[in-house]
């Protein structure tokens, strides 16, 4: 009954909306069972309009997008429009925005499109997104963009795993290192002994063993095939170009769990957009894209030859590959994979290494935190000392972190610190208050939480409409977490004041504290979570309630 009332009210509102919006455009999406064939494996999957990935939705800024979503599954589904600013009832999170879309039902999303750029959409139900329910969104801007390009491609990255999402989480709960095949072995022990001596190696192993943590614990879910636009490396997705054309590549990381380091050997990439918002152009040789982020880059290939798009996973356990080519069928030569799988260091464990520039480990004993007293720092054989204390280090990684990226060609690797908004979206003003969110978890139990509390046990985060809240993310785990706030922008504090970039997903590396600010300008209730599928499903998730603001009360009651 309530549902009927809800749709009636929704219908009533849409009539008003349609009359007030210059033009409405209708799109149809069906949610279907599909097969994903990577060449090596065929898996049952979920897709849109008969395929995974789903289509690229091309919306226009200023229109009202009317999107009819028909659920052909025998389970409930939903679509979340990742990064879109919209009424909360259209945000597509079951139990927070709406009840979900029942089997056989069609739900009509009505989105007043008020932004432009590269975004994506995915299911927010169960493990449908890791199972293939994702697609891309391009929103054409009303005004001319501050950069030029001759052609464009969406480049959607995905870590397709042979196991279903539900099975993956169950396996992780049974055995947290179920998928970690990069663990240190007897061979590594022997080579470390020959390099660093027996005592040092034993003591280093002892340090990790006493914490019951693994320095190789970077990718929870290995064994995937990296896909570009649904194509495996072998199937070689190819984007065509003519020499000297400017090609805009809209990178979207639609992975369940995997960060990718992206490069196009031989081409400099100019980053012009991050998470759909224009940034002041930065020329880079390589960038790391966290799960759920988007980066738009422009490349200008001058030679009539194919170029490789190489996306190696952060932990080096997998990769995606495709070609930019002057002609169909001409495959780029795949660059050699870097086999230097990173190792986490004690810096990633949240120890305060702010004063480590001098690298005098022997004097660090007193600075210990987190119950690590008694560790012998003079014997930290596994640490990569060469990276430490260098002034060029990315400030968004703990000093001495094993995860700090380096460009394959030794050149420029994009940092969050390089991102500056092209045009500030909001006037600068001090935040009204700060909310601390400690990112917490227990790897051995595979439980993930915020401030030590899982979603099902947590109170919602309550924000006041009109305030500007400052989030302080403190990562107390050994993994990176891409935190995604729905419905409102996250202004990432890079220390650039009003030029701080505006994002929808903020990555927080191990051992780091990162701040973002949000202008609370969207009433209703929203999801806020780590975008790693199995962290989110395990409890690293919060509901955000925005109190006050323009009346959406009628709808609010209707949807309830």
């Amino acid at each position, binding site marked *: 009954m309530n549902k009927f009332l809800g749709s009636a009210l929704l219908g009533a509102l849409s009539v008003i909306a349609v009359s007030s919006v210059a033009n409405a455009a209708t799109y149809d999406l069906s949610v279907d069972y599909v097969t994903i064939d990577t060449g090596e494996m065929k898996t049952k999957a979920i897709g849109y309009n008969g395929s995974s990935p789903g289509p690229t939705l091309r919306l226009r800024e200023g229109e009202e997008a009317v999107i009819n979503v028909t659920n052909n599954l025998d389970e409930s589904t939903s679509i979340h429009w990742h990064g879109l600013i919209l009424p909360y009832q259209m945000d597509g999170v079951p139990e927070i925005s709406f009840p979900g879309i029942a089997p056989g039902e069609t739900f009509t999303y009505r989105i007043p499109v008020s932004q432009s750029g590269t975004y994506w959409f995915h299911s927010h139900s169960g493990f449908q997104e890791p199972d293939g329910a994702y697609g891309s969104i391009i929103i054409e801007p009303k005004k001319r963009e501050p950069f030029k390009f001759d052609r464009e491609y969406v480049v959607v990255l995905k870590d397709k795993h042979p196991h279903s999402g539900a099975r993956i*989480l*169950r396996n992780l709960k049974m055995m947290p290192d179920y998928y970690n095949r990069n663990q240190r072995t*007897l061979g590594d022990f022997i080579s470390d002994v020959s390099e660093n001596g027996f005592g040092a190696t034993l003591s280093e192993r*002892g340090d990790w*063993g*006493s914490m*019951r943590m693994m320095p190789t614990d970077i990718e929870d879910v290995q064994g995937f095939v990296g896909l570009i636009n649904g194509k495996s490396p072998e199937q070689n997705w190819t984007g065509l170009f003519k020499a000297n054309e400017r090609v805009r590549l809209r990178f979207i990381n639609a992975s369940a769990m995997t960060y990718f380091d992206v490069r196009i050997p031989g081409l400099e990439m100019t980053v012009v957009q991050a998470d759909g918002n224009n940034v002041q152009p930065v020329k880079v040789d390589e960038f790391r894209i966290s799960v759920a982020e988007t980066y738009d880059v422009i490349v200008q290939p001058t030679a009539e030859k194919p170029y490789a798009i190489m996306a190696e996973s952060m932990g080096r356990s997998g990769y995606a590959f495709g070609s930019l080519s002057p002609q169909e069928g001409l495959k780029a030569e795949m660059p050699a994979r870097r086999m230097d799988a990173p190792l986490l260091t004690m810096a990633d464990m949240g120890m305060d290494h702010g004063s480590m520039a001098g690298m005098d480990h022997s004097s660090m004993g007193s600075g210990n935190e987190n119950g690590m007293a008694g560790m012998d720092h003079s014997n930290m054989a596994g640490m990569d000392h060469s990276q430490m204390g260098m002034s060029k280090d990315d400030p968004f990684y703990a000093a001495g972190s094993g995860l700090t990226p380096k460009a394959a060609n030794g050149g420029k690797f994009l940092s969050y610190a390089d991102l500056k908004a092209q045009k500030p979206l909001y006037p600068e003003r001090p935040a009204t208050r700060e909310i601390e969110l400690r990112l917490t978890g227990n790897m051995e139990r595979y439980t993930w939480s915020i401030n030590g509390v899982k979603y099902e046990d947590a109170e919602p985060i309550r924000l006041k409409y009109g305030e500007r809240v400052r989030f302080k993310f403190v990562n107390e785990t050994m993994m990176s977490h891409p935190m995604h706030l729905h419905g409102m922008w996250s202004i990432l504090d890079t220390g650039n004041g009003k030029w701080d970039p505006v994002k929808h997903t903020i990555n927080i590396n191990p051992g780091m504290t990162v701040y973002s600010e949000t202008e609370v300008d969207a009433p209703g209730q929203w999801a806020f979570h780590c975008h790693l599928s199995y962290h989110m*499903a395990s409890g690293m998730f919060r509901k955000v309630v925005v109190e006050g603001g323009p009346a959406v009360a009628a709808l609010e009651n209707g949807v309830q």
Partner: protein
Amino acid sequence: MKTLTLAAIGGGVLSTILSFSFTAKADNHIFYGIQMEQFEYRSGDEGENLFVWDGDAFVGTDELKLRWQGEGERDLKNDLYENFENRLVLQTPISDFFDAKAGIRLDTPSTTDRWYGTVGIMGLAPQWFEVDADLFVSETGDGSARLDVEYEGLLTNRLILTPSLELNAAFSDDREIEVGRGFSSAEIGLRLSYDLIDRAVAPYIGVAYERKLGKTADFAKDDGEDYEATYLVTGLRLLF
């Protein structure tokens, strides 16, 4: 009679676990798993032929799990169960790495049956030792304790060498089941496994040495039975 009891217990455990896992479909916060650490044929130095298993299954949430633990030893030459043990416990986290558990245990070997109440802890000790420590009180009022320790040594990421130790102690004599006060028995094993299919199926070979200790060994000697044995083992480690 014995078979009936066993079937009843087995059926009960299985149906409880299954009914839990069916509810699990609706709610993805409930998980389940089944594993066999040992599922093996043992060939002894004095011509013994045994089939031995040691496994567990669970269903539940992060906070509360129902766990079945079972182990047994079938003497293939004499067609009898040297040991047949089933435990059903409830388990809950008590620290970052350890769970407490409490429940019941029923032993139904070919000789004498025993009911026990049990409490224990299981988890991961520093330096990656998997530990399971339990206390038991039998229906005759006899107390006993058991410690299980296992370590997985990675020769490669798939070839794994697993030393294990099981140590039993009794707080009083229970002549009927041939257990004497003090340390009663120990078993050490060394198994070399290869992860053939994910973590699900891992064939292994190894050795196991089993020995009755103290008074328990004396009881065995009095009865003219062996009190120690060495085996070559071949089996499968399973995880589903």
